[in-house]
Structures are given as structure tokens and as C-alpha cells.
């Protein structure tokens, strides 16, 4: 499946998919959409990326943080060293070889964590009602409206949990299947 056009297109399309899936998640309460659809859409973004580039590349591009780091040179003081490090990390000049790369994998092909977090968020949103002295899962809405998101409340949190869980579930299945 490694065709050039598909691979290049997917590289641009995946973030687009992800943003769109978040949009679907947020608009779900008033328009067609919601956590389940959003999660499926988000997972499709990654699935296509996997299809084009392989699981390792997907995990590296989306589920890991890369930090560049090198030792302080004698003529730099601490502050300037920190600033340089910051600049190296923000503006990545690929030609310049960093001395030491610290690659921190957020998920390391373990979308199980996503599932667990999703479930925890969903249950946690239910607990809010319990803390307020109402039954489990009773909705609680904030008074303020946040721009772009709209009114915020525990149902939205619950939907986010569903989103994460669905995302994790599909990724888990797809990553396992395409691994060997």
C-alpha cells in the first residue's frame, strides 16, 4: 500500500482528520456527531496513516515526544544553554545533528492506555454528580460558555471519554493486526 501519492496525502490529511474528529465530538450535543462518531473518525485518521507508513512510523509521529538535548558548552552560561535547548526543540533543523536525542514515547503502541483513560474519564464524569450530592451520572453544567466549544458540562466530559475509548479500541485492534 505504499504508493507515493497516498503516503504524501495522508501525511497532510491525518491532522485534518483529527481536527475534524474533535469538531465532530464537540458539536455532537446540538448537531449530528458525538463521541462515538468522533472517535471512529479519529481512529480512521491513524489507521490510514498506519496503512501508508506502518505502525512504527505512526507511533513515532503521533504518540511520541522527541526532545533534543546536548551538554552545556563551557562558554555558555545556564540561561543561554536553556534558551538554546528551547530553540533546538522548537525549530528543528534536521541537517544539524543533535548530540543526544531523548525520545519519549507517549503510548509506545499501547492504546490500551487511551482506553483506560477514556473509561476513567467517563466514570469520573459520573462521579461529579455523586460529589454534588445527586445520583451517579447526574449532569452538571458550568454556567460559562467557552468560545468554539459552547456550554461545558459533564455530558461533554462523558462524550470525551467515549471518544478516547473508541479511539483506543480501534487503534489497539489495528496496531495488533498490522504488527507482524
Amino acid at each position, binding site marked *: 500500500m505504499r504508493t507515493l501519492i497516498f503516503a504524501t496525502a495522508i501525511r497532510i490529511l491525518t491532522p485534518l482528520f483529527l481536527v475534524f474528529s474533535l469538531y465532530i465530538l464537540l458539536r455532537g450535543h446540538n448537531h449530528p456527531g*458525538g463521541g462515538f462518531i468522533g472517535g471512529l473518525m479519529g481512529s480512521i485518521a491513524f489507521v490510514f496513516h498506519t496503512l501508508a507508513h506502518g505502525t512504527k512510523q505512526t507511533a513515532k509521529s503521533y504518540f511520541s515526544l522527541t526532545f533534543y538535548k546536548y551538554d552545556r558548552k563551557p562558554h555558555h552560561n545556564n540561561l543561554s544553554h536553556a534558551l538554546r535547548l528551547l530553540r533546538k526543540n522548537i525549530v528543528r533543523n534536521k541537517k544539524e545533528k543533535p548530540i543526544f536525542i531523548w525520545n519519549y514515547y507517549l503510548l509506545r503502541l499501547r492504546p490500551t492506555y487511551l482506553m483506560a483513560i477514556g473509561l476513567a474519564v467517563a466514570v469520573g464524569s459520573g462521579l461529579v454528580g455523586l460529589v454534588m450530592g445527586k445520583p451517579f451520572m447526574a449532569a452538571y453544567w458550568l454556567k460559562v460558555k467557552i468560545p468554539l466549544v459552547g456550554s461545558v*458540562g459533564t455530558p461533554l466530559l462523558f462524550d470525551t471519554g467515549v471518544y478516547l475509548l473508541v479511539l483506543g479500541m480501534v487503534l489497539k485492534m489495528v496496531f495488533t493486526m498490522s504488527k507482524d
Partner: protein
Amino acid sequence: MLLVLTICLIMAFTAPWLFKMLGRYVVIPFTLLPFSIFSYLCTFLPAVLSGKVVRFSYGWIPSLGIDMHFMLDGLSLFFALLVTFFGGLVMLYASGYLNGHVLLGRFYLYLTLFMAAMLGLVTSDSIFGLFLFWELTSISSYLLIGFNNEEERVRKSAWQALMVTGMGGLALMAAFILLSLISGSYTFSDLLSMETDITEHFLFLPVLLLLLVGCFTKSAQFPFHFWLPNAMAAPTPVSAYLHSATMVKAGVYLLARMAPVMAGSEVWQYTLVLVGGATALLGAFLALQHTDMKAILAYTTISALGQMVTMIGIGTTVALKAMMVFLLAHALYKGTMFLAAGAIDHCTGTRDVNKLRGLARYMPVTALATTLAALSMAGLMPFFGFIGKELLYEAALNSRFFVWLVFGLTFLTGIGYVTVAVTLSYGIFWNMPRRATKLVHPPGFSLYAPAFILGLLGAAFGLIPRQIVTPILERAVQSISGNELVQLKLSLWHGLTKELGLSVLTILMGLLLYRYLKVVQQKSSILNPLYKFGPNNIYHKAFSGFLLAAKAFITAIQNGNLRRYIIYIILFFSSMMFYVIWRDAPHIDFSSRAQLLQQLPFHDVVIFTLVVAALLFLLGTRSRLTSIVVMGLVGYSAALIYIMFGAPDVAATQFLIETLTVVIFVLLLHKLPAFIYLSHQFNKYKYIAISILFGAVMTYTMLVVQDHTVESELKDYFGKTSVLQAHGRNIVNVILVDFRALDTLGEITVLAVAALGIYALLRMQPEKGDKP
């Protein structure tokens, strides 16, 4: 009370951690815990002795009327004191017995858990609370029996004990539910103070039988006695604590608790007397056949429990007094003997009474303790067992029915006890001191001290019965008989009564039997073939038979052929629908339906044609990729239909799922072998026929459903409240995440579990020996 139980539970679960911190000194907190609870319970003694009932209530499930009620009356307090006092001694003993064991922390965990459960059981006033603790004792007993889990025999014994007592627990739950239905009360105090007589109710007999099954399994009564000797696979502290002093008496406790309510029934009296009597005699007889100390003790325990059950069955005041006194006497002497047996096993490496000789030389304190206990067991004059035996005879002779049968059984059992007592004390400790068995190591303090304390108490209670134990026993008897005026006067000397004569006769006969014990054992080996039909064998047969049947069933139904699974599901579903349609036979007007077809819009026709053409093509294709793509086409068409009917959410989900399915198939496609027809042509037609059947049933069902719309207020309700109460205009989503969020939570949990299951299946490598 709840606080005490909570502390117990917390202590239990910190045990492994404390063991890591304190090493072998972990014994200190765990011995102090039962004794401090013991002293706390002692503070209730004055109140209870003056006739009050101490109660504690906590709300639990108020909507069902189920609350945690605890109550301390004479019976409860007596048992609670027994449990905690024994608990303390056994905890101390366990440190010596399991000295250096790496899992001592875990052992204390189980033991403390058990103690908490037992304490809850005997103090619980609500019947469902009692059931809860009842099951907890079964589970902790399972864990304790299976403590040495490397041995298969041990695992089997533990499993057997759990199966038998667990089955009894289920019967008990049924009994309690029926009982609360009959009487409308959930607590023992309500049951006891009830005006109406429930023995007349038509459900009384089932309640009684279920209750008896529960109590008999727990207290190892015939024919459920077989698990107790097998449970001796547990470490000896466990045997002493659970399987002689406390847990097996839970059944007796419950029978005693229910006695005021049930005792009016003749079924109750006869069953208890007959089963108890049979168990008593059988236990005593079997005890004589064995040479393993723990087996002997186990069978005499069964026998003693049988005697207690008989006494409850007789139900006269004397019988109840005899029951309580004998219970305490038995707990004291049997506890001593068990602890001594464990010490001997630990020090010499054997428990065979034929190999042990003259141990008094090396283990003087244990010898003294065991002898005191044995004299109490045999029922000799100044010991507490003597008072118990006298009362047993008196009760048997004054029974309202079956006088000679009951007395005969009690007398024969008594002879058996004397023989066993002589075997275990004289035979092991004092016989042939010249050729004494060599010790591997001398017993430490914690191995002999608890036994000695118990043995001494048996003697002390006998010498001064009135001052220490009589008041609490009297209150306990009052609780059982439901009569406040019962008085208990214990004394050693009643004058020259016929009970005294019978006691002397029992001892003489017992000594005679001991003289000819070898002969009796040889003669009785004729009975060995009978064991083949014993309940233990039946249990094992039933167990393995059940496993075989389950295996055969599973291999027949779940043979790994996915097509079959789907066929089973579809056929089952279709036959259910057939049955419903045939039974209700709703009428459908096909002609008016057919006319509707003429108004079909053009795009519907297009989609219909598309789907049918795709399906026909699917049947003919021999390429996997083609079939997947064609299936995707069908799915997208379905999504289009959803859109036309105004369900964008469902349509979007359908689109995405179809896409994902195709992508996942593509990912897997190159791993699959080439596409070949494995099935016979005939099978293909069979599958087509089944598919058509299913489609027809579904179509018919849809038509019926459309004709008979269900009136529902939900639609209006959701429509009205969606914006106002849930701040959302998309009703589907509002239902999912707000109105029915709990359902969604369940569904996503199922999704997560399914994903983990798929992961486990995919990662499995059968060629490397992984098993599903």
C-alpha cells in the same frame, strides 16, 4: 460493631505488608487484635448478663429494606467471645507452627479475614448480613484449606469444601428469601418476636428443608460430612480454629438461632434428631477406624456436631442446656487436642497414633494439656466435659420422643469418645515410655502454650462452673429457648443419679473397647467396600461427570467453526420469532402494502437494485478483495437509506464502520491463505436457505412492527426535555450521554473488554503452546 469488623478487615489486608516490615514479630499485632476485641466484647457482658440485648444499626440498602443490624444477646456474645478468644490463641500458635514460612503474612490475612467473617456471622441480626458473612467464612475457609496450594490433594480438598459449603450457602439464601417473603421481616429479632405462627404457612416446608441443607453442609452433618475430614489438609491451626471450634459450629449457631421459630414443627424435630444422631454415631465409629490423629479428631468433631444438632432437635430446656455446655466443653477439649496434634506433627514429623509412643518424656506441657483435654472428653469427674456428658444423658433420657433411640446413640457415641480420648492421651504420651518416639525438635513456647491454656480452662470450668461460665451460658440458653425464665445451675455433684451410673458405665465400656481396639479395627475392614457408595465417592463421581459433560457440550457447540456459531444464533432467533408470530398471529394486510410499493420514490429503487445486484454478485465471486468491497457497497447503501429516513448520526456511524471494516480487512488480507471452497456445494445451498429464512422472518417482523406501533411517551418526553434540561438539541446524542449515560458506560466497558479479548486472541501463539 461495624468499626470492629472494619478494623479486622483493614488489619487482614495489611498483613502481608506488616509481615514484610516486622518479620516474625508480625505475630504480636495479630495476637493482640483478637484479644483486644475479646476485651472490648467483655465490656458488653454486664449489659447482656442483666438481660439486655445490645443492638447496632447501619443503613445499607434502604430502598430494599436491607440494613446491617448487629445484635449482641447471650448466644451471640457467647459465640463472639469464643471466636475471638480462640482466634487469639490460634494466631499465637500459628506463628510457631508456620515458623519461617515465607507466606506467613498471607496466612494471617486469611485467618484475620475469617475471624472478621465469623464475628460478623454470629453478631449479625439481619438475615442477609448473616448470609453475607456466612459466604465469607466459606471463602476464607477455602483459602485457608488450600494454603499449601502446591499439592493437588490440598487443592482438591479446598475445592470440595467450597463446593459443599457454597452449595449449602445457596440453599440458605433461598431459605432466607422465602422466609422474608413469608414473615415480611429481615431481622432475627423481628422473626423471634413475631406473633403469627409461620409453621402453618404452605412455604414453611421448603424453607425448613433449605435451611437445614445450609446448616448441615456447614456443620458437616450426614450426608454432607465428607468435606470435613478432607479439609484436614489445611495447616493445623486452621483445622483447630475453623474446622473444630468455630466455623463448623456456624450451622449449629444458626439452628440454635432459628430454634424458637421453627421448633414447633415436627419435621424439624425428627430431622434434626435423626440426622444428628446418625452423624454422631457414624463420626464416632469412623474415628475409631483411623490412625491419623487429625482424621480421628475430624471424625469426632463431626460426631460432636451431630450430638449438638440432636440436642437442638429434642428441643427441651434440658437438651438446650446440654447443647450449650457440651458446645463449650467440646470447643475447649477439641481445640487443645488439635493444637497438641499439630505440635506433635511439627516436632516428630508424624501424626500416626500407631507410631507415637511415650511422648510425655519430651513434651511434658503438651502431654499435660492433652491429658486434661482427654479426661474432659471422656467425661471424667472434675472436668467440664463431665458436666456436659451428664446433661447430654439427662436430656436424652427426658426426650419427648425416640427416647431409647436417642439415648442409645448418645451412649454409644460416648463410649467411642472415651476410647478416642484414651488413644490420644495414654496411647501417645504415657504408653511405653522406654521406647519413646524421638523428636526432631522440642516444641517452642507458642506451640505448647495455647494448648495448655485451653486444657487448663477445661479443668477450671469444671471445678468452678458457677462463677465463670454459667451466667453467659444461661443467657445463651435463654436466647435459644426464647424463654426468659430458664435457669442454668451447673454443678459437679448431683448425688447418686442414674446419669452418674451411666457415666461410669460409659467409661468402663470405653476402656474395654480400647483394650480390643485392634480387633475391632480389623473386623470392621469388612465394611470397606461400602465406602465406594459413600457420599465422598459420589461427590467425586458427580464432579468429574459434570466436567466431562461440560466438555462434551462445549466441543459440540463451540467447535471453532464461525459459520456454525452464526447459524446457531440465527436459527435460535428465527425459531423464537416464529413462535411469537405463530402464537399471537398478528394480521397483515398484504394488498394495501403492495399498493404502497407503487409510490416508491426513484432513489429507493436505485438503492434496492444496487444492493440486490451486489449480493448476487457476492454469491458468485471467488476473490476475497472483491467480496469485501462488495460488502462495503451494501453497507454504504444501508447508510444512504438511513440518511433518507433522517438519521444522520446512525448513517455517519455506519459509514465509518464500513470504512474501518474494509481497511482492517485489507490489513489482514495478505496474511490469509488463498481463497478456496472448502464446503460442499450442498452446504452452500443450505447456507443460502438459512439466510433467506432469516431475511424472511425479519421482513415479516418489520411489517408486523409497522402495523402495530407501540405507544410510548418517551419520544415526547425526550423531545421536550432535551433542550430544557440537558442543554442539547441532538436528541440521539443527549440520550446517549445524558439520559441513558449509564447504559452507554456499560456499552463502552464492553467495547474495552472486547478489544482486550481480541488483543489476547491475536497475540496468542498456538504453535508455541499458548492455550486459549
